[in-house]
């Protein structure tokens, strides 16, 4: 029974089923809000679920000349990564002491798996557009990982070297949210930009580029593997903002007012994501690289230095 509980946590709550349902609802909010911004009505609430079930029922075509095994395994790598991150985050929210030393580093590494799965998928499908998309995805992950890890370093420095998610939550429960300090606010802004790039949304949807690469790495995917990719993206849309809420905004409570404020914090981040997405054109890959290695990295370094001096 003791060994069964982590497996159930991974598969049902707070792992796969919970994250998938919440992520699909988040992606509906994204689509509906986008539609309202454009003066449209937008899809009904069950639309992401209908899309997912539809894709499960479709034929899976494996491209001739593609690497069959990798083509089918690649989407699962990304989904497993996101599910694990979400499980790690939520068991710490449910019980702050249930994490392990260094789980924040594990979460950071696992969050690179969706990008890795896209790169593998692009190269496994033997399609020139997919290869271009995969190489762009690779450059993007080189671009945003540096400022992202610097932004994550700020809460760790602030708490005096707590490398557990539970430790950061405990510190914020007693000393107030990290985003309340100068360094925390700068780091949060940097992290929001990196999150936009990690989600692959406009202005950083350079690897998917619907209008020029028509899907990029996932151009040759159809049926169930495509459904898994879409689900991974929806789950990321839930997991990444929750990660930032935990690191910078004091986490999510379990009942009453803290729960409500936690949900509101998540919703605020989601609205920021959708607004950035709807008010910006897509950047070129060189512009995005310059942006992340230039001003964003500089701001992240500044935040780290400020945090070291206690601001």
């Amino acid at each position, binding site marked *: 029974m003791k060994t069964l509980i982590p497996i159930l946590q991974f598969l049902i709550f707070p792992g796969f089923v919970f994250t998938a349902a919440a992520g699909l609802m988040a992606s509906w909010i994204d689509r509906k809000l986008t539609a309202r911004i454009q003066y449209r009505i937008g899809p009904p609430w069950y639309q992401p679920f209908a899309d997912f079930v*539809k894709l499960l029922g*479709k034929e899976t075509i494996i491209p001739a000349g593609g690497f069959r095994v990798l083509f089918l395994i690649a989407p699962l790598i990304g989904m497993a990564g996101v599910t694990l991150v979400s499980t790690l985050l939520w068991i710490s929210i449910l019980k702050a002491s249930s994490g392990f030393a260094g789980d924040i580093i594990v979460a950071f590494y696992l969050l690179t798996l969706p990008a890795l799965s896209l790169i593998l998928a692009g190269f496994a499908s033997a399609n020139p557009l997919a290869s271009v998309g995969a190489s762009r995805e690779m450059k993007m992950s080189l671009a945003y990982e540096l400022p992202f890890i610097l932004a994550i370093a700020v809460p760790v420095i602030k708490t005096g070297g707590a490398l557990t998610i539970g430790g950061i939550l405990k510190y914020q429960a007693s000393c107030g949210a990290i985003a309340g300090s100068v360094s925390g606010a700068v780091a949060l802004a940097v992290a929001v930009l990196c999150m936009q790039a990690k989600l692959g949304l406009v202005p950083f949807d350079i690897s998917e580029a619907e209008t020029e690469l028509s899907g990029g790495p996932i151009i040759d995917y159809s*049926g169930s593997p495509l459904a898994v990719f879409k689900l991974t993206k929806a789950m990321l849309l839930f997991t990444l903002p929750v990660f930032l809420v935990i690191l910078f905004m004091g986490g999510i409570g379990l009942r009453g007012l803290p729960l409500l404020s936690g949900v509101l914090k998540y919703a605020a981040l989601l609205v920021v994501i959708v607004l950035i997405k709807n008010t910006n054109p897509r950047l070129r890959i060189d512009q995005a690289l310059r942006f992340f290695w230039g001003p964003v990295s500089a701001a992240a370094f500044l935040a780290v230095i400020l945090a070291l001096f206690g601001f």
Partner: protein
Amino acid sequence: MSLKKKALTKSIGVFHLSTGSCNNCDIEILDCLTPRHDVERFGITLVGSIKHADALLITGIVNKQCRPILKKLYDQMPKPGFVIAVGTCSAGRGIFRNTYIVDEDEPLDKVVPVDVYIPGCPPKPEAIIDGIVKLIDKFNTGKGEKK
């Protein structure tokens, strides 16, 4: 009706293919996505890759050069999928009938099985949406439009 069928009719990804059209129908198709008509209400979206599509939407006369491409694209579409022909040209070649650019022995429905024709030059966005509704009815009942 099975869940699979229901989900398919609630979420149609459309791949738009012009086989020698004059761009008029293509503009009317984009009109369907504008705030006034907004087909995303019904879960209909335009997709960039034929592998992501559930419906192949054809405009134009299917001229000699486009025919092999059309056949190839239809074969690449993951099944089950629909074929929608928009405009008078794809239905009966319109004013391009008996010209040298089309092969009279190979009309559209001999290249790919067409599920619904939406005539008009160009058809109004309302007519296109009506055509999709009739297509979904046909798919659900397995025969013609519900009386």
